[in-house]
């Protein structure tokens, strides 16, 4: 019954590095065996892959000091035992990977678009961004500016979308798809929950139809069937047709995500909004949708990540996105056989984007958790 409340340090074997190892790696026989096995595999594997990708790899020059301009000069072709990755293919074709076949003297327009994309998107994503309100005004205008910049018109030379390729196409498809699918998804979600049976049925059928078929069939639809629907003389750009298919596809999934958010809002919110006299649209715009979207943002980001990855499918209908340029590079006899380098590079680029998006989603989830708790008193 002493009044003193000093604390002691825990016994040595249970904390510190020793304790950690015991608990996490070697807690019993099976665990110890598995840990040793995994450590063995890692020790074999990691140095090898580091060596191949970085230390023994060629970036521009091979081990003789020559500049690599075709596969024959790659270290690993000259010396298969010791050579590492031949990144020269990426280095030499970098322009294509980034821009496709965009004319070189107009490429400043693409670069400007990239920069403006960053300016348009980053303030949107972070609440605490300084002068956010002003930046958001730019975000609204950005799509129009980007359209003219990339396409041409208004005094700028027009660049046909056939020439677009690589990361440019991937980003255009991804960003435009997400940006258009979002409002469309909201409309579909509201429509599905509508009290008017015709509207509700039409939206439900549309959503279920789209979610039941693979994206490829919709891409075929866009490329092959859409031109048949258009009257004579009206030609729709190849990229635009694909964009339509991708947007329709994504909007159905977006609609389901938002519908989940709408369902999560307690009935009381709807009732309160109506009872203070708000109309259907006012209720949705001012009360219901802001909350629903906030709840579903992590899922929205997840489906957007899916869309971003799905843009690779356009190579099947002949468009040259990042992966398409990669495959094209491999088909070139100058660089035949350097598959690992190309696919590694393409994977890396995708990984960077999607990983960033999923980190952002986690950040949002954490932020929203505290936000929702703070409000619920």
């Amino acid at each position, binding site marked *: *019954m*002493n*009044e003193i*409340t000093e*604390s*002691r*340090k*825990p*016994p040595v074997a*249970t*904390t510190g590095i020793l304790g950690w190892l015991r608990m996490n790696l070697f807690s019993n026989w099976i665990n110890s065996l598995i840990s040793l096995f995994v450590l063995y595999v890692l020790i074999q594997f990691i140095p090898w892959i580091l060596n191949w990708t970085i230390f023994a790899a060629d970036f521009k020059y091979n081990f003789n000091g020559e500049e690599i301009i075709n596969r024959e000069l790659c270290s690993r072709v000259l010396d298969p035992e010791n050579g590492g990755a031949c990144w020269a293919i990426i280095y030499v074709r970098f322009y294509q990977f980034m821009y496709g076949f965009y004319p070189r003297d107009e490429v400043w327009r693409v670069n400007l678009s990239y920069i403006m994309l960053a300016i348009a998107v980053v303030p949107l994503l972070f609440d605490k961004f300084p002068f956010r309100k002003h930046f958001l005004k730019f975000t609204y205008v950005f799509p129009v500016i980007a359209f003219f910049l990339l396409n041409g018109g208004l005094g700028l030379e027009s660049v046909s979308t056939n020439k677009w390729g690589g990361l440019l196409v991937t980003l255009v498809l991804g960003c435009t798809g997400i940006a258009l699918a979002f409002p469309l998804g909201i409309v579909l979600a509201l429509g599905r929950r509508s009290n008017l049976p015709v509207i509700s049925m039409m939206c439900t059928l549309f959503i279920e139809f789209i979610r039941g078929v693979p994206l490829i069939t919709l891409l075929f639809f866009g490329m092959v069937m859409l031109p048949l629907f258009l009257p004579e003389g009206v030609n729709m750009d190849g990229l635009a047709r694909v964009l339509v298919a991708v947007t329709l596809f994504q909007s159905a999934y977006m609609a389901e995500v938002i519908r989940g958010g709408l369902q999560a809002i307690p009935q009381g919110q709807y009732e309160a909004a109506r009872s203070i006299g708000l109309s259907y649209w006012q209720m949705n715009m001012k009360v219901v949708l802001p909350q629903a979207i906030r709840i579903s943002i992590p899922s929205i980001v997840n489906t957007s990540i899916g869309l971003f990855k799905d843009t690779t499918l356009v190579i099947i209908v002949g468009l040259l996105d990042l992966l398409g340029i990669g495959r094209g590079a491999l088909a070139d006899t100058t660089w035949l056989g350097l598959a690992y380098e190309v696919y590694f590079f393409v994977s890396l680029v995708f990984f960077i984007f999607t990983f960033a998006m999923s980190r952002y989603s986690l950040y949002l989830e954490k932020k929203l958790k505290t936000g929702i708790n703070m409000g619920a008193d």
Partner: protein
Amino acid sequence: MSEDSIISLQNVNKWFGDFHVLKDVDLQVKKKERIVVCGPSGSGKSTMIRCINRLEEHQEGTIIVDGIELTGNLKNIDSVRKEVGMVFQQFNLFPHLSVKENITLAPIWVKKMPKAEAEELAMQQLEIVKIPEQADKYPGQLSGGQQQRVAIARSLAMKPNIMLFDEPTSALDPEMIKEVLDVMIDLAEGGMTMIVVTHEMGFAKTVADRMVFMDEGRIVEQAVPEKFFNNPESDRTKLFLSQILNH
């Protein structure tokens, strides 16, 4: 160590990582004794009773329950758990099983009882906690107080020698606290050895043989209720009592 202690904690120390949560805890509990453990939150009261049925592991000291010492030995742990029943703050009923199935699960699987016998036992327990008519309902269909009473019945079905209660009424709406406390009082009067962690001082005054006050991981004071409430020795006890009894 007392010869007739059914639970013996000696010099028990426990850490969560670097945090020293139980400091030199000594506690002896005799058969049929009713102990009420109280103290501010974070004082280690829950941790202490969870060490008694090895839901938590202690790093230093000895814990002996009904002659069995609690160590890493799995057989000992299983034997102790058959003797000791536990009731949780969050009830922890199995939502996918009916009330009757919740109660018969352990007797059937652990004690290898035939189903009919187990069901009869279950109905007996439900009578004891006064809700036999709920036998075929599911936990989601019951009120909080009813769920906690089922939880008590579920533990009692294993015929334990010792019952541990970890803040059994803290998650209940006020109007349901009484029904659960009444069941616990009946249990106490029937001669069950009980350790109850609670803030319900009225219950403590009615039932407790001994009050144990814990603060910051230590047992600060142990006394019979009359002495504990009217004439506590430690200042910390006095402070705690003044805070908790002023509602």
